[in-house]
Structure formats: structure tokens, C-alpha cells
């Protein structure tokens, strides 16, 4: 039987606000443990939470980018459970009246645009970090545990999709698209290694054509999109295996071991916690007035889809270029700045999508991390346009720039790469090449004009590629016998 996977995602995004969700402590990754804490985020007796307005504005941006509707009133709830990384013994979160509901994000799946529905977007706070001392760094077998409360109370946005995703690949595309959108919104650094973007996935399978949902399992805390894709594939295989052998899928949380590639159960629904949600009495309702939402709309940064449209309509780029360039915030910024400095959009696009992207893919750096700045690229392109160097030499120079961080001019000067356009110097070379290759000259005379390419190549070889190909072509046509 053929099965269709049904996948829903829950994504947690740490916001990059200056201060924490409910106190004035700074939000930053790392640092000396427990140095960014106060009575509020340590849950000292008598301390009270105060909402961070900036976090709500960021939340608003996310909700609007995901085309959600924002009810005028949402409230906070307490989610109760005991764990050492949760100082109050409850997490302030949102429950049945979240900040935003009913949105969607379009993603390309197998070349087709599909809209994945967004169930809700809500605000909550992050926990502290437990550090288990001992051999493995995991809780099992550790000698003791330490807690770093620096992360405690960091603003956290939870995005929940509808079960609209039907393959692990589509899940990955959705997450890439979402991450890209969040980066364009300037609300999070989306660094998965540092945990500022985390994802849980719910997955079930059903016979193709069925409407009813199967029993789902949950893959928790996956820290890369690649592992999510792999983990989901593995879990789907496991579920298919169970059903084919006449067994049932049990509703539970499962763990995907990225080393062995195996799935193992964590806890089943029967052991699930009762969080005893109730309205948070320490916070007044969150009112998102029409004015407030309009204000957010006004301060919304340009989204990738809008940028792509602009690249096509204003920069005259092909749609393909526009999509590639806007698939990454830093790449897009790099392109834009280069265009503003150099002018010709298509040339910049060719270089960014060709040379730069190849280099980034090779090294794993981001466009922002690359040693070549948009200014340096624009200088290089100016040299090519001005005929100082050929386009081919330019590519060589670009690669050198990436490696050394030097300017194009410095590299060209150091390596003597300036293009030779001087007719006298080239004339001598051409005469020599014609003399040395009588057989090819004979072919040319016989009407095989294409052989001119051979002569150009010879001149280039002699000049180390520095000869101006246009001048060489012209001179060759003059000198070669009719």
C-alpha cells in the first residue's frame, strides 16, 4: 500500500531583542554563566514580569510576514511543570488566545508553489540551560548538573504549522523558507547551533487518498534542517514498517540519533504532562490595536518575495536570478549593495550567483562572512568594464580576493595582470604566432575561419591571458591572409 506522510512543524525562534521578555537583562549568546540575571528571571520571591514591547513588535512582524490575522486581544497563560531550568515552576506562554492565528507561507515543493497553513504564532519565554557534568554531557550518567540562567526569559516565539506538509523534503523547504523570512525581518539571528531556531516535527502516515489522520509521533529538538529531513524520513519508514507488519503506531515522542540514524522512543502520551494552564494574573491582556498593527506594517522590512519581484521589475533580472538572490538575506544584501555601487544589475547578479556563490558553497561561509565586500566586488567589476583586465582574469582575481582579502587593484598590480591592449606589442606576438603555425594558416586560407580561435588561444597563452581578446581578434583578421 502507498502511504502519504502528514507533517506539522512547531518552530521556536529566539528573538534578538536587546533585553529579555519580562526583565531588563540583556539577551546575548554565551558569556559567563549566570551573569545576565536578576530577581525576575531567577524567579526570586515577589518579582513580577513586565512585557518587553520590542519583542511584541518583532512578534507582530512575524505574524504579518506569515499573513496571520491578529486578534485585538490575546492573553498570557502559565504553563506549569517542574524542571530546574524553569525557575518559576511555570513558563509564561500563550494558550487558547494566542497573538496571531490562521496564516500561511508559500514554498516551492518539486517546482510547485504550495501554501503551508500557519495555525498560530505566539509569544513565550525561553528556559535556562542545564549543563550536565560528567563524561557524556548528557543527563544519564552525569555526576551533577549546573544551570546557567543567562538564557532564562529570552523572548521566544512559537510558530505552529497546520499538518500541510507531505514529505520530509517539503518540511526542509518550508523551514528554509521560514528561516529566510525571519532573517529578512531582522527579528532573530536564526542560529540553529546556538539554539536560536529550534524545531519539533509531528508526523503520521495514512493510506494515500484517506482523509483521516493517522496516529502521530513527535520528533523533538532537532538542531539542523538536514537532520529534520533525515529524521522524518527514518520515522516515516518506521511507521510504514509498523503498519505493514500489522502493528500500530503509538502516540509518543521519539528521538532521532543523528550518528546511528536510528529512532528510539522517549516518552508516550500516557506519561504526558498535565500543564494545568491558567491565565497569567501578573500580566494584563496584550492589546494589539489597529493602530499598533498599522505601525508594525509600516516598519516591516521588505520580505524576500517582495525583493524578488523588485529585482525582476526594477533591476530587469530573470525570475530565476531573483529567486536565487533572495533565498538568503546576506546574499541579497550583498547583491543590492554591489548594484548600488556598480550599476549594471545583471552583471552583478552573474558574478554573485556565479563566482561568489560557488566560493560560499565551497567554504560554507555566508555572504556576510566573505572577505570580499560589495565595494571590493564593484571595484573589480569596474576594472573589467574599463578593460584593465579581462573577464577571465577577473575571475582569477576574485578568487584571490576571497583568499587574501586584498583589493582587485593590489592583486592585479602585484601579479602584473593588466590587460595588454597595446597594438604594437600584440602585433609582434601575432606575427610570431602566424609564422610558427603555417599549417593552421593554410587551413584558414582554405576557408576554415574557425581556426582563428586557435590563434587567439596562442596569443593568450603567450601573454598569460592578459591580451585583450577583442584587439587580438581584430589584429588577427587583418594579418591572416585572405
Amino acid at each position, binding site marked *: 500500500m502507498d502511504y502519504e506522510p502528514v507533517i506539522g512543524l512547531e518552530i521556536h525562534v529566539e528573538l534578538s531583542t536587546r533585553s529579555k521578555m519580562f526583565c531588563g537583562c540583556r539577551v546575548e549568546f554565551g558569556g559567563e554563566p549566570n551573569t545576565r540575571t536578576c*530577581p525576575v528571571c*531567577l*524567579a*526570586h*520571591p*515577589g*518579582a*513580577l*514580569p*513586565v*512585557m518587553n514591547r520590542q519583542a511584541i513588535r518583532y512578534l507582530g512582524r512575524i505574524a504579518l510576514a506569515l499573513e496571520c490575522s491578529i486578534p485585538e486581544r490575546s492573553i498570557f497563560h*502559565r504553563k*506549569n511543570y*517542574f524542571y*530546574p531550568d524553569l*525557575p*518559576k*515552576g*511555570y513558563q509564561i506562554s500563550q494558550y487558547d488566545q494566542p497573538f496571531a492565528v490562521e496564516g500561511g507561507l508559500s514554498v516551492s515543493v518539486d517546482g510547485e508553489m504550495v501554501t503551508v497553513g500557519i495555525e498560530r504564532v505566539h509569544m513565550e519565554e525561553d528556559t535556562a540551560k542545564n549543563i550536565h557534568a560528567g563524561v557524556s554531557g548528557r543527563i544519564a550518567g552525569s555526576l551533577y*548538573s549546573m*544551570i546557567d540562567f543567562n538564557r532564562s526569559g529570552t523572548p521566544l516565539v512559537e510558530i505552529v504549522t497546520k499538518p500541510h506538509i507531505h514529505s520530509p523534503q517539503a518540511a526542509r523547504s518550508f523551514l528554509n523558507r521560514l528561516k529566510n523570512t525571519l532573517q529578512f525581518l531582522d527579528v532573530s539571528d536564526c542560529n540553529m547551533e546556538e539554539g536560536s531556531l529550534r524545531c519539533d516535527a509531528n508526523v503520521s502516515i495514512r493510506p494515500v487518498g484517506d482523509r483521516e489522520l493517522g496516529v502521530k509521533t513527535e520528533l523533538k529538538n532537532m538542531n539542523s534542517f538536514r537532520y529534520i529531513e533525515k529524521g522524518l524520513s527514518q520515522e516515516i519508514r518506521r511507521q510504514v514498517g509498523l503498519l505493514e507488519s500489522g502493528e500500530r503506531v503509538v502516540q509518543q515522542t521519539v528521538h532521532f540519533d543523528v550518528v546511528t540514524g536510528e529512532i528510539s522512543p522517549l516518552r508516550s502520551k500516557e506519561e504526558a504532562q*498535565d500543564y*494545568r*494552564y*491558567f491565565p497569567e*494574573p*501578573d*500580566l*494584563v491582556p496584550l492589546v494589539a490595536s489597529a493602530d499598533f498593527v498599522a505601525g508594525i506594517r509600516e516598519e516591516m522590512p521588505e520580505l524576500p518575495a517582495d525583493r524578488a519581484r523588485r529585482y525582476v521589475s526594477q533591476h530587469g533580472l530573470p525570475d530565476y536570478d531573483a529567486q536565487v538572490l533572495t533565498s538568503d538575506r546576506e546574499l541579497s544584501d550583498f547583491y543590492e549593495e554591489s548594484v548600488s555601487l556598480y550599476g549594471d544589475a545583471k552583471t552583478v547578479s552573474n558574478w554573485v550567483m556565479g563566482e561568489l556563490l560557488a566560493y560560499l558553497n565551497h567554504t560554507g561561509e555566508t555572504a556576510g562572512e566573505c572577505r570580499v565586500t560589495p565595494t571590493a566586488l564593484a571595484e573589480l567589476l569596474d576594472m573589467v568594464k574599463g578593460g584593465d583586465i579581462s573577464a577571465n582574469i577577473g575571475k582569477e582575481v576574485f578568487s584571490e580576493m576571497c583568499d587574501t582579502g586584498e583589493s582587485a587593484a593590489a592583486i592585479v598590480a602585484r601579479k602584473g595582470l593588466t590587460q595588454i591592449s597595446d597594438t604594437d606589442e600584440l602585433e609582434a606576438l601575432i606575427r610570431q604566432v602566424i609564422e610558427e603555425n603555417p599549417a593552421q594558416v593554410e587551413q584558414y586560407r582554405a576557408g576554415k575561419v574557425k581556426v582563428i580561435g586557435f590563434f587567439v588561444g596562442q596569443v593568450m597563452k603567450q601573454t598569460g591571458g592578459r591580451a585583450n581578446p577583442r584587439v587580438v581578434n581584430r589584429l588577427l583578421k587583418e594579418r591572416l591572409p585572405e
Partner: protein
Amino acid sequence: MNLLRLTAMEALEMMGRGELSADELTGAFLDQIDRHDGDVAAYLYVNKTGAREAAAAAGGGDRPLNGIPTAIKDVLCTEGMLTTCGSRMLEGFVPVYTATCVSRLTEAGVVNLGKTNMDEFAMGSSTENSAFGPTRNPWDLDRVPGGSSGGSAAAVAAGEAMWALGSDTGGSIRQPASFCGVVGFKPTYGSVSRYGLVAFASSFDQVGPLTRSVGDAALMLQHLVGKDPRDTTSVAHPEQIVIPEDRDLSGLRIGVISELSGEGIDPGVREVFQKAVSTMADAGAQMETASIPHAEYCIPAYYILAPAEASANLARYDGVRFGLRAGGARDVIEMYEETRSLGFGDEVKRRIMLGTYALSSGYYDAYYGQAQKVRTLVVNDFDAAFREFDLLVSPTTPTTAFGLGERVDDPLTMYMSDICTVPANLAGLPAISIPVGLDGGMPVGMQIMGPAFSANRLLQAAHGAEAAVAFNRVSPLVEERD
């Protein structure tokens, strides 16, 4: 002259005229503490050196409450000074910050005499639930002072403080004020910042004064109210608090709440109360019968909602970051269980269990949900009553102070001590208790309630009633110093 009989307003006038020094005043109260607190046990911590230093520093100052010896309920955080909430859990706990209300009084010049005893985490009506032993009633040392602010009420009644700060969740200021023959005022919810008030039930808790006179209550309140950026449920008081001067009650329409002044009220208490009602009528007030139809549901609703909030508020006492930690536990769950078993007393455990149960999956709607509906009905009842009446009155408590140990094994009877006071907490309304007479040698209090933020009207009427009734009695411990 018996300085212990002075009101704060009288003392300030005398100090202003140079007839009394702050040293002298604080000295008199510290002497009284020395003499009687061994029996009364109003204090958990006497700030002897600090108080003397503060009084010395206050000499000649012109701050509005300069040199007034003040007791502080041990539920309020005081930086560098023990704050235990009457619990083993916080034995030896020293906060790193000071509650906003305490800071405001300190900035106005008061002298902090120390921290007063209370029912553990403010849960109780007799101060017998303190882990550090009960406080005794200064009118009769074999009786309870009421609770949970029993230490504060007893300190004021015993001449061990000129006035005191208390907190009121279901009657915890008014009930002990009534038992001890002093004035106790619970402000409108939101009037006084809760920052630094160790939370019992966040949507009910309010800080307020226990004083010798209505004028003093108004004076202290002037310095307590106001929006605090650290408590988002606090608001700017719409009117400036005025010290009441006019004693005229004429023109006031005052409703006597039939449900809270008939059946269930001790005949002796009823008699004193009725006499006070007649006296107020003689003084010009229009006294009529009023109704709060849902009054009988207040106690049940309160004992769902307050414990529900408490069950979450007290989750932070887990032995991880501060306070008691049970030794020898093998893992974190065991550490939680043992710490909380050792650290909390019976009543606190009872309420945590009640609250946890009421919020549990499958019971939430039947308990928490229903109780919230009752709360709304009670709010509506008061709204309707205040369309007819300016103010409402009832006895503060159904009986006078009962004997020590009399009700400790009967929680339900104990809970009924709050039958008259709880409605104002459910509706968030301001309410004052003033002494209006004695029954069997023990004080009887009258409660006056007003619409939200009607503190001025309420204090004005209470001032008039105080003058008309002319109670003018002090406990034997103060009388003996005449």
C-alpha cells in the same frame, strides 16, 4: 505622656513643633517591643540597630513621614533584611531587592522597626500557621490576633509599632485589624504595587496599611499608591489621596449588606455592629438594606481561585536557587519532593493540592472555570449595589478573636472567618475595617466597602464613622503605659 497612644499624624505634628524627637519616638516603641514582644510575638525580626540609626538620621529631616516607627509584614521583600513569609522554606532568606511599597515609605522617611509574623505565605486567618510560632492578641494573650497579617495588627495594637504594612488576599488586613481593634485598609486592586510582595494569589493580593486611625490610613496610603513600572497590574490612582477632615456623614447613602450581617454572624458582634449602624444614621448617613445575592458563593469560589494561583506561585520554592534545600536526595525529583515536604506547613500544602487539583486536566472547567464565573457574578452584584449606594457596610468578621488552637484542626471553620472580607477581594474593591466597639472585652470591626478607586469617599466616610462611634480604646498593653 504615653507616646504609644499617638497616631502618626499627631506624632508628625509634635516632631514638626519640636516637642518630640524621632529618637525618642522610636525608642518608646523599641522599649515596648522589649517589654512585650516575648509574649505577643508580633515580630519575626526586630531591626533594633537599624531602627535606631534610621531614627537618629531622621532627626530634623523634612520628609513627609519622617521618623514614623513602622512594622513591615514579613511577606514584603527588604534588601539585606530577613524575609521569611513565616515559612521554613525561606528561613534565613535575605532578598537582594526591596518591595516598591517599602521603598516608597522608606523614601518618605519612615523607620523600619522590623518584620512581622504572619500565617505561612499569607495563608491563614489566625497567624497560627507561621512556622515560627503564633502571635498572640494584645487584648487577650490566649486569643489569636487574626491573620494572615496578625503580626502587623498585633504590633499596632500592642504599641509595638505606630503603624504597619500588611497584605490582604481574602481579608488578611481587615480581619486581624478587626480582631485587634485597629484600622485596616485594603486598597482597590492595582492601587499599590505588588512588586516585592511575595505572591500568594496574584489576582487578589494587595498591600495596605494597619493603623491607629483612619487619618493615618489615608496618610500612609498617600505614599503607597501609584503606578509602578515593575508591576503591570498597577495603575495610577485616579485621584490624589486626601486626608479626611470633614466628619459629616449626611447625604451618604450606605447599604448594609443583608447576606453578611445576619445569619452566621455572632449575636454579640451583630449587636455592636447594629449599634454602629444606628450611630452612623444618627450622624446623618442614610442607612438601608443592600444585597449581594451571590455572597454565599464567595468563599467556595475564593478557595478554588486563590489556591489555583498559589499552586503556581509557590512552585518556585524548589530548593534549586534559594531558600531551603533538603539534603541527601538522589535525584532532582526527590530533591523537590523532600524540600517541599520539609519546607511547607500543612495549610500551604493543603492549598497547593487544592489548587493543583482545580487546574488539572478534566477538572478545570468544573472548578476553576465555574469559580471565575462566580467572580464575574460577584463583580456584577457590586456594580448593581453601587448604582444604589455610595458605600456598603458589614461586620468585618463573624466573630471576635477566637482562642489560640481553637480552630487549627478545623480548616473549614477557619475559612469562614473570611466570609465578610473575601467578596471585596473577588471584586478587587477597596474596603476598610474600623473598630466600632467591644464584645466580651474583644474588639469588633465594621467593614466599609466602596466602588473601585473610591478611596477618598471611603476614607471620608470611615473617618466620619470613627468620630461618630468614638471607640477610643486601646489594648491593655498600651493602656498600662498611660
